[in-house]
């Protein structure tokens, strides 16, 4: 690891100020960034820890019924406390292992936007709003490809707001070595229609499967997607699975998620 200065501010305002320095980078749970620093794939001059900022932690229900989660809330806390949105709590409880869940945070996961991460599927599948220190970004505009997001330099996620669906489920086909999703599908049924978000499959990162959304919006049953198929074009191919295999999993897991949502 290259050397860097370390700061641990206690307010959002101080964190934003500290991040305005050249080559400064935010540190949340460190469960992605610390391994990255060890490999010297990142070389910030200054790390600004977000873990001592009380405003960034905790879960609450807003007046409009949305579940609001502070960006520095750990996966373990979401698993235990997001009782208003059981599918989201279940997703958080399946990330990595207990020690990773005790440190890793929702803000870090969404900022990183790993193509195989779990939270991006929940945020896109719920039509969540990503709140930053300067604006609100709709999930549909936020994810911009593998490891790419709408965040600007020095911009930090402060909160994520999830509209709570009538029914939802996340099914993760785990890659047993990394514990990430080989493919994961998040299905959520709202009064206005169904959303289906897929992680782990596409070279462009998390995406919505529009045909399945249309079919499930008129008939919310696993059989409703029987006639659909997903193409292998643009799917990830690696030693864990071919593009065809991943495309196949998208449909299988979507059906399972619908069945699990009930």
């Amino acid at each position, binding site marked *: 690891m290259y*050397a860097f200065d370390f700061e*641990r501010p206690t307010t959002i305002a101080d964190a934003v100020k500290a991040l305005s320095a050249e080559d400064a980078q935010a540190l949340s749970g460190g469960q992605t960034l610390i391994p990255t620093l060890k490999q010297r794939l990142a070389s910030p001059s200054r790390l600004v820890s977000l873990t001592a900022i009380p405003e960034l932690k905790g879960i609450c229900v807003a007046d409009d019924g949305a579940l609001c989660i502070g960006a520095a809330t750990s996966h373990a806390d979401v698993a235990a406390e997001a009782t208003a949105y059981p599918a989201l709590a279940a997703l958080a409880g399946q990330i990595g292992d*207990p020690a990773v869940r*005790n440190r890793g945070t929702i803000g870090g996961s969404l900022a990183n936007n790993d193509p195989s991460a779990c939270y991006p599927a929940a945020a896109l599948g719920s039509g969540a709003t990503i709140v930053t220190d300067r604006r609100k970004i709709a999930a549909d505009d936020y994810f911009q490809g593998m490891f790419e997001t709408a965040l600007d330099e020095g911009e930090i996620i402060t909160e994520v707001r999830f509209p709570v669906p009538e029914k939802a489920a996340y099914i993760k086909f785990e890659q047993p070595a990394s514990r990430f999703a080989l493919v994961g599908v998040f299905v959520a049924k709202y009064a206005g229609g169904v959303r289906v978000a897929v992680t782990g499959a596409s070279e462009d990162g998390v995406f919505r499967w529009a045909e399945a959304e249309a079919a499930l919006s008129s008939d919310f049953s696993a059989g409703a997607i029987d006639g659909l198929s997903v193409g292998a074009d643009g799917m990830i191919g690696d030693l864990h699975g071919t593009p065809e295999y991943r495309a196949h999993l998208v449909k299988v897991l979507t059906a399972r998620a619908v069945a699990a949502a009930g």
Partner: protein
Amino acid sequence: MTKVSMTVNGKPVSGEVEGRTLLVQFLREGQGLTGTHVGCDTSQCGACVVHVDGKAVKSCTIFAAEAEGAEVTTIEGMANPDGSLSTIQQAFQDHHGLQCGFCTPGMVMSAAALLAENPKPTEAEIRDYLEGNICRCTGYHNIVKAILAASGQDVAVAAE
């Protein structure tokens, strides 16, 4: 360099660290507490698990500066005050829950965190909780038995 202070195994300690100093380096090199092991240094194996404010964390994946003011417990803090092995440690010995012993500090710390949360876990819950603790020797069965035994349950239920 900055100064960090924390409580380790009940004793207040402090030291000078760089920003990049990991908690595991602070414990092993700064405090001489070499019971906490580094198996992979890539956040995968769990040999380095310690408790920070009662929660199991990988000490190779947290900076020492982030444990400022925290209560840290390592394997050296697990024995009973008279030096005899704790229930979990004794169960690992009784049930052959270790062979080379390299993973054992992390296994014991994860087991202790599990039993604090869930005093009577099922075999499946134990296996699930140990997902982030890798053992190259035992094949896990005897580790699972040791944890069942430490929680006062019948070890015969564990699958061979």
